[in-house]
């Protein structure tokens, strides 16, 4: 039985299989939302804190200096969050929040966990892959479903969850109930 046939029958064994484009795209979108929301929050809070400090102590004399200080601090904190979010989480768990939601994980081609160097290369690879999105689209045609950043860092992405037989059973029951209801309606 092929993977596709198995998928249609709901009998696939996903754990450890190469993760596909759609899952990874959705994971990336979730990560993007998380990072954007956090950086926006940091900016708002930073603005508020600096304003409060300025009002309380008046230690930031000029408007231009306030802007400069604010931009620098917020940029540093945002960049720190960005690096910790991706590099830190990749190293610790092999997955970010988005990847956890869709159930995929990054591993090195030699089967080991991500190291700092690998994570940094992969993050830089993200930006290279973003050129015309070709690096990301490569996942669709690659035999191991690797993007350009995966190839650069020597990693691949696999499913981290086994399909829950209980869930499949529930889906089947639901489909059965739907069929019964439809047939009873058509008869009436």
């Amino acid at each position: 039985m092929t993977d596709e046939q198995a998928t249609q029958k709901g009998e696939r064994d996903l754990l450890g299989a190469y993760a596909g484009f759609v899952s990874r795209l959705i994971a990336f979108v979730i990560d993007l939302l998380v990072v954007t929301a956090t950086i926006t929050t940091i900016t708002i809070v930073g603005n508020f804190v600096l304003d409060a400090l300025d009002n309380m102590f008046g230690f930031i004399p000029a408007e231009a200096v306030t802007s400069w200080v604010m931009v620098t601090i917020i940029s540093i904190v945002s960049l720190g969050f960005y690096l910790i979010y991706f590099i830190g989480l990749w190293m610790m768990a092999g997955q970010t929040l988005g990847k956890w939601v869709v159930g995929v994980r990054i591993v090195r081609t030699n089967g080991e966990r991500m190291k700092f160097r690998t994570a940094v290369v992969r993050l830089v690879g993200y930006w290279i892959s973003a050129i015309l999105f070709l690096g990301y689209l490569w996942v669709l045609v690659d035999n191991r479903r690797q993007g350009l950043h995966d190839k650069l860092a020597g990693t691949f992405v696999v499913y981290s969850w086994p399909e829950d037989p209980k869930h499949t059973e529930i889906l089947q029951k639901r489909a059965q109930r739907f069929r019964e209801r439809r047939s009873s309606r058509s008869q009436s």
Partner: protein
Amino acid sequence: MRDTSETTSLPNQADDVRDTPMPAIPTEAVAIEGARQPSKVTAIPPDQPAALEFERLQLVTRLLVGFLAVGGDELFQWLREFQQEIDSNPSLLPARRQAKDETELELLRYLTIGLLVRGEKAIARGVSRGFRLSANATGWALGTLNRLTDNRLARPFRQRVERRFRDWEQETDLIIREGRREERSGRWLAGQTVNEITNTIMDSLADNPALDDLIQDMIGQQSVGLAGVVMDNTRQVTTTADYVVEGVLRRLLRRPSRQALPPSPLKGKPQEMYQYEDKLDRTVQDDG
């Protein structure tokens, strides 16, 4: 929503009225002793369309009165709570702008608001004083009139005036009682209407197959939890989409299908390289 038990337990209300579904109104049940029976919503023969229309109008009016009374109470309660919250924690209010940044238009607006608030207080004081003065003046005038007319000559006229006053007083009393009764009926009606609408919505939701499925699933798999179900569903959908999209694209590009490719070396194996606890346990055991 205000609890309707208060209105359904009116002292003069009959039990059968409470149990009657909408639009039965406890009109007769709250009849006032000694007062002329006000407009009743009684059974009207269907061959009287004008009366039927009037009955509808009366019911709608009563319902509106009920909604206004109940809604007004609720709104007032909320406003009072918000005000108390603000009084106890003034920092909830938006930060005040610097005086130097305010435009003339804003200053004018503040002046108007200040005058309005001050005017309100002045009007309230004025009305109170006016009532007091009016009561004093009326008392003095009535006393004087009483002394002037308390003689044989003016007595017939005085009696007629007194009778008219008594009639007015009775009529006013009746109107007040009717208004009071209407408000109670309206409150009861509004409460029952809201209950009925809520029940209808709940019934229609319960009849909804999709919701029924969801509840069945939740009951059937309490250990999984709703979040788990949602996440599993997401994963199922995205995984299926992975295979479908890739399958189509590979066919278009005439590339070999996935089953012809070597599987992942990690297929079927848990990713233990990220399990800290196991490693820690092993380290501890090794050390021991």
